C-alpha cells in the first residue's frame, strides 16, 4: 500500500482506507456476538435462518401427516392445519430462503468475491442481523401467544386474515405476523443497502462488473429487486395492521361475519392482493436469482469449464429482474380483477420464460465437453437443473391465463411452486454449503454422508412434488386438510397422498444427516487447504483459510481476469485465479 499510485488511492473509497486496526476486534463479545465482520454476520444469519427453517420443516411433517393419513392424528384440527401451512410458508419463503441467500450467502460471499475487506457499512450490517433476529423471535412468539399463530395462509388475504373465522385473526397471531414482517423488512433494508453498495463501491482494483462471478451478479440483482419490492409488502402490512388494530377500512369491505354486521365498509381486498403480489412475484426471483448465480459457479467450477455464454447469463439475470416487476398479477387471474389484465400479464409472464430458458440452456451447455467432477456440490447443481426445469415448465401452465383457470388454487400450484422455488433453490443452498464449507471452516464435509444426503434429498423431493401435480390435476384444491370422497376424482388420491407423506418424512430425516455432517466435519473433516476445488474466484485466494476479519491481510488482491478462466489453452493448470497475472508472469500456483 505504500507505493500506491494516486490513481489507486482515488479508486479506493475513503471509508475503505484500510486501517487494519479496524479489523481487530478487542473482545470476545465483539468478535463473535456483536460482530461487524460480514462473515460472522453471515453465519449468524444462516444459523438463525436454519433454526427457524427447522421449525418450518417440522410443520411440513405435521401437514403431511394430516394429508397422508387424515383423521389419524386428532390434535391436527383444521385450525391447527391452517396455522401449520401459514407458518411453514411464511418461514420458508421469507425467514429462511430470503434471509439465507441474501443475509447468509450475500454477507459471506460478496466482500470476498469482489475483493473487499468487509461490507461498506459494517455497523449497519450488524444492526440488520439483530433486527432480523428480533423479527424471527416475534414470529416464533406467535406460537406461544393466546390463540396461536395466524392461519390465514402465507398470502394473508384480507378480509379473512383479520376475522374470527380464521385462527389467529382476532387474537395475537396476525398482529405478531405483521409486526414481524415489518421488522424483517426494516432489517433487510439495512442489509440490502450494504450488499448493493458493496458491489457498486467496494470492488477491488481490476474487478469490473463483467469480471464478477455470477454469484455476485445474482445476489446483487436480487438485492436491488428486494429493496424495491419489499416496500410493497411493508405498505400492505402497515395498512392491514391499521385495519386490524385501528379499525380503518383500507382493505375491508362491508361484510357480515357470523350473522353480525361489522363496522368496516367500502374497502378492497383486491388492493391488498395487488400490493402483496407486487412484492410476492419479485420475491420468487429474489430467491431464484442468487440460486441462478451460485449454481452457475458450481457448475463451472466442477465441470472445469467457463460458464457458457457469460454475457448472456448476466443480461438474462438483469432482464429477468426488471421483467419480474410487471408480471405480478398472474397470481390473480381468478381473483376477480378486471379480466382484460389477463392478456397483458399472461404475455409478460410467458416472455420471462425466454431469458430463463436461456439460462437453463447455458447451464447444460457448460457441461458439454466439460471435465465433469461429480462432487457433492456438482450433484446438487444437477439436481437443481432437473427440479428447476420441471418447476419452471409447470409455470408455463399457470402463467398462461386460461390454463391457469382450472389449475389455480389446486395442489398443482402447490407442487409447482415447491418444485421451482422450494426444492430447486434449496438444492443450490445445499450445493453451496458443500462447496464453501471448506472456506468457512477449513475442513471438507464428509463425502459419503454428503452423497447419502444428496440421493435421499433429490430422489425423495422429486417423489414428493412430481406426483403432487397430479393430485392437483385430479382437482383437489390446495389448503384442504382433507379431501374426503368426491365423485369428480378419477381415482382416489389417498394412497398417493400417503406415499407423498412417507417420502416427505424420509427426506426430512435425511436432513438430520446433513446437520450431523456439519457438526461432525467441523472437528473430524479432512483438512481442506485454501482452494480444494481449484477454483478461480477471489474467495479461494485469501492468504489464510478461514479468512480472518479484514479478509486480505496487508493488501487487497488485484484482479487481472474474469472469474471463469478454466481449462484455458496453454495455461499450466486447468484454472487461473482471478488475481493471477498470467501470461505476464507465468503462474505456477500449487492448489
Amino acid at each position: 500500500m505504500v507505493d500506491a499510485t494516486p490513481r489507486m488511492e482515488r479508486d479506493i473509497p475513503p471509508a475503505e482506507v484500510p486501517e487494519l486496526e479496524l479489523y481487530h476486534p478487542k473482545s470476545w463479545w465483539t468478535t463473535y456476538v456483536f460482530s461487524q465482520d460480514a462473515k460472522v454476520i453471515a453465519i449468524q444469519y444462516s444459523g438463525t435462518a436454519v433454526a427457524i427453517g427447522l421449525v418450518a420443516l417440522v410443520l411440513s411433517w405435521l401437514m403431511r401427516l394430516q394429508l397422508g393419513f387424515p383423521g389419524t392424528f386428532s390434535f391436527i384440527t383444521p385450525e391447527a392445519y391452517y396455522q401449520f401451512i401459514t407458518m411453514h410458508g411464511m418461514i420458508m419463503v421469507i425467514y429462511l430462503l430470503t434471509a439465507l441467500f441474501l443475509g447468509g450467502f450475500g454477507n459471506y460471499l460478496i466482500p470476498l468475491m469482489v475483493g473487499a475487506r468487509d461490507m461498506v457499512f459494517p455497523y449497519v450490517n450488524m444492526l440488520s442481523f439483530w433486527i432480523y433476529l428480533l423479527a424471527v423471535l416475534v414470529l416464533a412468539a406467535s406460537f406461544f401467544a393466546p390463540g396461536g399463530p395466524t392461519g390465514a395462509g402465507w398470502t394473508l388475504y384480507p378480509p379473512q386474515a383479520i376475522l374470527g373465522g380464521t385462527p389467529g385473526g382476532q387474537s395475537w397471531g396476525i398482529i405478531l405476523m405483521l409486526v414481524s414482517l415489518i421488522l424483517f423488512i426494516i432489517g433487510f433494508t439495512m442489509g440490502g443497502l450494504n450488499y448493493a453498495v458493496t458491489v457498486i463501491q467496494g470492488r477491488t482494483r481490476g474487478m469490473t462488473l463483467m469480471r464478477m462471478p455470477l454469484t455476485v451478479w445474482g445476489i446483487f440483482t436480487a438485492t436491488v429487486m428486494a429493496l424495491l419490492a419489499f416496500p410493497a409488502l411493508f405498505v400492505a402490512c402497515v395498512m392491514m395492521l391499521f385495519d386490524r388494530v385501528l379499525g380503518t377500512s383500507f382493505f375491508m369491505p362491508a361484510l357480515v361475519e357470523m350473522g353480525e354486521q361489522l363496522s368496516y365498509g367500502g374497502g378492497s381486498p383486491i388492493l391488498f392482493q395487488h400490493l402483496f403480489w407486487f412484492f410476492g412475484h419479485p420475491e420468487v426471483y429474489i430467491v431464484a436469482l442468487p440460486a441462478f448465480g451460485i449454481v452457475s459457479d458450481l457448475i463451472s467450477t466442477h465441470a472445469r469449464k467457463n460458464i457458457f455464454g457469460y454475457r448472456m447469463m448476466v443480461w438474462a439475470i438483469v432482464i429477468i429482474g426488471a421483467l419480474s416487476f410487471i408480471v405480478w398479477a398472474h397470481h390473480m387471474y381468478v381473483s376477480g380483477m378486471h379480466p382484460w389484465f389477463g392478456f397483458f400479464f399472461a404475455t409478460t409472464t410467458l416472455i420471462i420464460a425466454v431469458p430463463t430458458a436461456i439460462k437453463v440452456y447455458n447451464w447444460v451447455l457448460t457441461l458439454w465437453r466439460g471435465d465433469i467432477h461429480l462432487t457433492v456440490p456438482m450433484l446438487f447443481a444437477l439436481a437443481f437443473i432437473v427440479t428447476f426445469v420441471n418447476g419452471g415448465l409447470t409455470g408455463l401452465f399457470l402463467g398462461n391465463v386460461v390454463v391457469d383457470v382450472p389449475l389455480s388454487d389446486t395442489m398443482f400450484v402447490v407442487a409447482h411452486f415447491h418444485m421451482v422455488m422450494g426444492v430447486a433453490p434449496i438444492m443450490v443452498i445445499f450445493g453451496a454449503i458443500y462447496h464453501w464449507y471448506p472456506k468457512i471452516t477449513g475442513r471438507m464435509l464428509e463425502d459419503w454422508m454428503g452423497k447419502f444426503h444428496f440421493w435421499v434429498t433429490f430422489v425423495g423431493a422429486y417423489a414428493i412434488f412430481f406426483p403432487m401435480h397430479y393430485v392437483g390435476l385430479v382437482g383437489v384444491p390446495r389448503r384442504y386438510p382433507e379431501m374426503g370422497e368426491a365423485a369428480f376424482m378419477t381415482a382416489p388420491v389417498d394412497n398417493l397422498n400417503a406415499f407423498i407423506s412417507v417420502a416427505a418424512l424420509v427426506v426430512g430425516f435425511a436432513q438430520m444427516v446433513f446437520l450431523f455432517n456439519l457438526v461432525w466435519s467441523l472437528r473430524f473433516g479432512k483438512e481442506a487447504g485454501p482452494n480444494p476445488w481449484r477454483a478461480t474466484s477471489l474467495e479461494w485466494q485469501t492468504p489464510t483459510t478461514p479468512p480472518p476479519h479484514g479478509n486480505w491481510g496487508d493488501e487487497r488482491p488485484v484482479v487481472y481476469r474474469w472469474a471463469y478462466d478454466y481449462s484455458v489453452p496453454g495455461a499450466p493448470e486447468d484454472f487461473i485465479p482471478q488475481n493471477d497475472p498470467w501470461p505476464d508472469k507465468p503462474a505456477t500456483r500449487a492448489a
Partner: protein
Amino acid sequence: MSVILVFLTVVIGFSFWWLFHQKVMEKPWLEHGVHTALPETDVSGMPTAKVALAVFLAVVGSLFALFASAYFMRMDYADWQAPPLPRILWVNTVILILASIALSCAVRAAREHRREMTRLALVTAGLATFVFLAGQVTAWRELAAGGHYLDVNPANGFFYLMTGVHGLHILGGLVALGRTMVKAWDDDVAAEQLRLGVELCAAYWHFLLFVWLGVFVLLAGWAGDLLALCRQILT
C-alpha cells in the same frame, strides 16, 4: 399501480443506463490485466455514503410511490370522502422549504469552509424541521377536532398514515442532522468530512421535501383531479 410503475421505470431506466456504462457488452474473457478496466469505468469516484444514500432514497421513493398507488386505487371506491385540508399544511410546506433552503446554504458554507455559517444554517434547518413536525401534529389535532378520525373514512386513514410515515422519515433525518451538528461543533473534524455529512443531509431533506410536495398534492385532492382530467382527455 401506475405510480409505482412509473417510479420503477425511472429507477430501472437509470440502472440500465449505469450498466451500459460498465462495459456490460464487452467480452470479459478477452481482457487481461488490470488496466483494461481502469480508470473511469471501474468503481465510481463518488463517496460511498452518497451512493448508499441514493440507493436508500430509491427505497424510500418506492415506499411512497406504493402508498400513492394504493391511494389512487382506493380512491375509486364509492365510500371515499376526502377530509378538508388543514390550512396549516400550507405553512408547514413553506417551513419545510425553508429547512431545505437552509441546508442548501449549509452545503455552500461547508464547501467554502465557513464553519460559523455552516453551524448557523444547520441549526436553522433543524429548528425549521422541528416546527414542521409540530405543525404536522397540529394538523392532525385539527382534523381530529373536526371529527375526521382515522377510522371514519379511508381518505382520513391515508392522511394520517402518509403524513405519519413521512414524519418518521423526517425524524430519522433529524438524527443524522444531529450527528452532523456534533461534527460541525467539533473542531477536530476535517472540513471534508463535515462537508460530506452536510451534503448528505441536504440531499435527504430535498428528497423528503419532494416527497412531501407529492403527498401534499395527493392529499389536497389535486392529483385525483389531474388524473380524472387525463382520463377525460384519453377517452
